[in-house]
């Protein structure tokens, strides 16, 4: 069972919840930190990385000896990653989506592929908790290829918790794409509600069963609850706004350190999701 923890708005508590779920489960867990632009699960799970691997994507390399600057590669590229400028043809690696189309359309066979480093994956294990985390290279604008590599660390038949990047664009979609269930974490503020609506639209579009967790539930108003009731979306858990959580967090502790009673809540939520998915077949 793969559960992605996502949100529209950043800072609502995705990592807090992902870590708490992973540390509460009664079965072995694989925790995947897919928030590759700023991964931080490792700060809370206390696992030393015992493996690190670089991740590359293929990008075109043009053999100037064979290229006659006909411009077909530039014309083909939908991402403007190649420019044909009269007497020269330029590649802009950071715009390339690695489709390989330019190589296919080149009549001179002048384009080959070379590797471009986009980030690295670190992983480790402690007891029943396996952990993998992606870190995007600074300056690289494209995270989905790295997120997809992190997701390959999932194993079928295991409980997998995916900490997704914020937002609802390609990185978030990549992170939740293989999940069986999505937990949307929000907060009862106007921003929280606004971005929750966009996140709900997104998971509906890609047909993922989902529920909502309201973090700092007593800090705002009841509009998130009213919205969920109207839309018939289950609020699976409400986490109170408690200073003890902030204190624990500032020391690298988890919500379970601050509110031990949350462990039972996390287990209850995991069991409920598992039952729901079982019923759906």
């Amino acid at each position, binding site marked *: 069972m793969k559960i992605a923890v996502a949100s529209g708005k950043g800072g609502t508590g995705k990592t807090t919840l992902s870590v708490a779920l992973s540390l509460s489960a009664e079965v072995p867990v694989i925790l995947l930190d897919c928030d590759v632009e700023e991964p931080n699960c490792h700060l809370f799970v206390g696992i030393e990385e015992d493996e690190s691997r670089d991740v590359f994507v293929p990008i075109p390399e043009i053999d100037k000896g064979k290229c006659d600057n006909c411009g077909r590669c*530039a014309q083909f590229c939908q*991402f*403007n*990653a190649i*420019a*044909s*400028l*009269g*007497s*020269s043809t*330029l590649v*802009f690696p950071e*715009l390339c989506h690695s489709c390989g189309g330019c190589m296919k359309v080149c009549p001179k066979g002048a384009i080959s592929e070379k590797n471009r480093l986009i980030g690295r994956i670190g992983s480790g294990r402690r007891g029943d908790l396996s952990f993998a985390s992606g870190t995007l290279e600074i300056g690289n604008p494209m995270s989905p290829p790295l997120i997809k590599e992190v997701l390959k660390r999932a194993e079928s038949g295991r409980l997998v918790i995916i900490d997704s990047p914020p937002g609802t664009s390609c990185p978030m979609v990549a992170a939740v794409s293989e999940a069986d269930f999505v937990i949307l974490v929000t907060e009862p503020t106007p921003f929280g509600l606004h971005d929750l609506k966009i996140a709900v639209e997104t998971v509906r579009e890609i047909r993922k069963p989902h529920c909502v967790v309201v973090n700092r539930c007593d800090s705002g108003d009841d509009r998130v609850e009213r919205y969920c009731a109207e839309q018939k979306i289950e609020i699976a858990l409400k986490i109170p706004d408690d200073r003890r959580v902030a204190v624990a967090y500032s020391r690298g502790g988890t919500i379970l350190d601050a509110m031990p009673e949350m462990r039972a809540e996390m287990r209850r939520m995991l069991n409920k999701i598992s039952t729901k998915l079982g019923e759906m077949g």
Partner: protein
Amino acid sequence: MKIAFSSSGDSLESPFDSRFGRCRKFIIYDDAADSFEVVDNSQNLNAAQGAGIQSAQNVVKAGVAAVVSGHCGPKAFRALSAAGVKVYNCEFRTVKEAVQAFKSGGLKEADSADVEGHW
């Protein structure tokens, strides 16, 4: 020689556009003939990425030796430099004013991009 001016319309009286990658039109001025033609650039207005690169290809295809615009980002500058096109950054109200400033030699050639991408 031909010089491309970024513009939001298709005449010399049109407002000068300070954006290179996402200007609506290029006024391609020929100083020898004192005439101009218009190159449409509107397909780049909503490009997700690479607007500057596409604009550079457009003006290179039009055969210009120089570009006069408000600002030029790093990818556009790299593309224009590769094609040997000179870049001049300036601020004017209309294209006509920019043309006059260019003809009088009052513009200084840029030796690098003057803004980050997606400014």
